[in-house]
């Protein structure tokens, strides 16, 4: 241990906290991976094949199954980032006292939150690509732009991980996540443009949808598959800003919760 005073955001501290997540992940990766593959597959079969066979052939010139498949990336990202961040953080803090153990080591709240967000971001960035791979298996042509999908998913997942951590540090009881899910997660998921294009919505909803990070992710993933536009730079910048804001809010809320 160095005699010097330690700095903020030390990579070794962040890596140490992430190594704990990796060690735990090794014990449950099979179940998580199974559900991450099965869920988009079920959605694609239900919405993609079901609706395209009966109601919708294509949207804006894209076969409906490919429209839904590319949009499902956002669904996979929010469900593998916001929810694990909310429940995982709450359980580790309240029931397992994990954070008391970590903060007794030379790690501070900023490093702890950053490590938790990075880990969820990496995991979600990987699982977020699964629906795209499944859609390719259902006939979507691979494109070079798709190689950026993990990056888009990672940055979005960082933002939602920060949101989840901040919520976990704010609620008093675990049941209060029902309000968070009903008020934020489900509406964001539904007005992301995953299952239908948002330009069919009333004007007010369209404006709200533009502020929805998931919608920006859906647009970026579709752009990766069907062709980028200049506006996509702004979409990506929006996601980066979203991640930065939730990171700082999560640190602030966790500091209030963990340090007396």
């Amino acid at each position, binding site marked *: 241990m160095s005699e010097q005073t330690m700095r903020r955001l030390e990579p*070794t501290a962040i890596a140490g906290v992430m190594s*704990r997540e990796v060690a735990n992940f090794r*014990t449950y990766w099979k179940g998580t991976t199974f559900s991450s593959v099965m869920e988009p597959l079920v959605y694609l079969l239900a919405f993609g094949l079901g609706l395209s066979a009966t109601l919708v052939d294509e949207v804006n010139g894209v076969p409906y199954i490919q429209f839904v498949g590319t949009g499902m990336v956002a669904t996979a990202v929010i469900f593998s980032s916001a929810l694990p961040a909310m429940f995982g953080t709450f359980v580790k803090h309240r029931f397992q006292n994990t954070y008391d153990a970590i903060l*007794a080591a*030379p790690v*501070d709240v900023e490093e702890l939150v950053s490590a938790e967000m990075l880990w969820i971001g990496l995991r979600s960035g990987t699982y977020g690509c699964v629906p795209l791979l499944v859609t390719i298996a259902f006939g979507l042509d691979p494109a070079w732009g798709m190689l950026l999908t993990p990056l888009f998913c990672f940055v979005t997942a960082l933002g939602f991980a920060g949101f989840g951590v901040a919520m976990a540090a704010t609620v008093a009881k675990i049941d209060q996540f029902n309000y968070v899910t009903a008020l934020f997660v489900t509406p964001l998921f539904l007005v992301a443009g995953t299952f239908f294009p948002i330009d069919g919505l009333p004007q007010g909803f369209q404006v709200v949808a533009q502020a929805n990070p998931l919608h920006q992710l859906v647009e970026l993933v579709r752009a990766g598959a069907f062709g980028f536009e200049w506006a996509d730079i702004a979409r990506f910048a929006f996601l980066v800003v979203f991640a930065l804001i939730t990171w700082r809010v999560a640190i602030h809320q966790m500091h209030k919760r*963990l*340090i*007396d």
Partner: protein
Amino acid sequence: MAAIELRNVVKTFGPITAVDGLDLEVPEGICLGLLGPNGAGKSTTMRLLTGQAIADSGELRVLGHELPGEAKTARGKMGVVPQLDNLDVDVTVEDNLAIFARLYRVPDVGKAVDKALDIARLQERRRDAVDQLSGGMRRRLLLARGLVHEPRLVLLDEPTVGLDPQIRTELWTLIGELKARGTTILMSTHYIEEAERLADEVAVMHQGKIISRGHPVELITEHAGRLTAEVYGPPERLAETRAEAESRGLAVRPAGPAIAIVGSEQADGFVPDDAVVRAASLEDVFVLLTGEEAE
């Protein structure tokens, strides 16, 4: 240099003053027992020392580092063994240790894990998940986790609370070995026997303050004298005896079904013939000073 120096430290939680002008100095190389009833402020003191609680006022210095500003650096040199088991139960024994070796920036993680496994006597269970261990093994692992980086100072927060006597004895042996290596230990406890057995010095904490401090024998001599007489009988007789003893300036405390006349060697023939006279104990001191029943 003292390992721990606290000067006039105050910590409040709303209307409750958990630590109330605390002064505490722990020289290097000793085991100091922080003895106090539940709610005395022991756990808050421990959290102040790790920077997990921030004092309202006062000065705190750990291993030469000012808190809370240099708390992270100080934490790197100290080990903490918490009151509650917060091991990762699905993860193997060795991975639990390796994670903390990394958090403490130990250069050779494998070697540190091996040493810690030796301390915990868990070499043969190293690849087992923690939830397959017995309660005693888990407590030993928790202790070893706090020592994985060979700290100069160890904070033990109620290390044997809620454990059965056999596991408690196992833990005491390990803590004794740690003491023998010259590690500075601050151990909070509300078990009298634990403090008597392990601590070089005992500080009695009550309502957020240290109210007395010294070697256990010195504390007994200072506050309880040499002998204690326990008087048994119906409540009326105990009340009568108590009133009489107190009128003679003797200290009396409840002792389960009896009353204990502390310092009975000075009772000047007053002690009833059927009283059980024994050597004064740290428990007598604890109850006299804090007014709380001992465990």
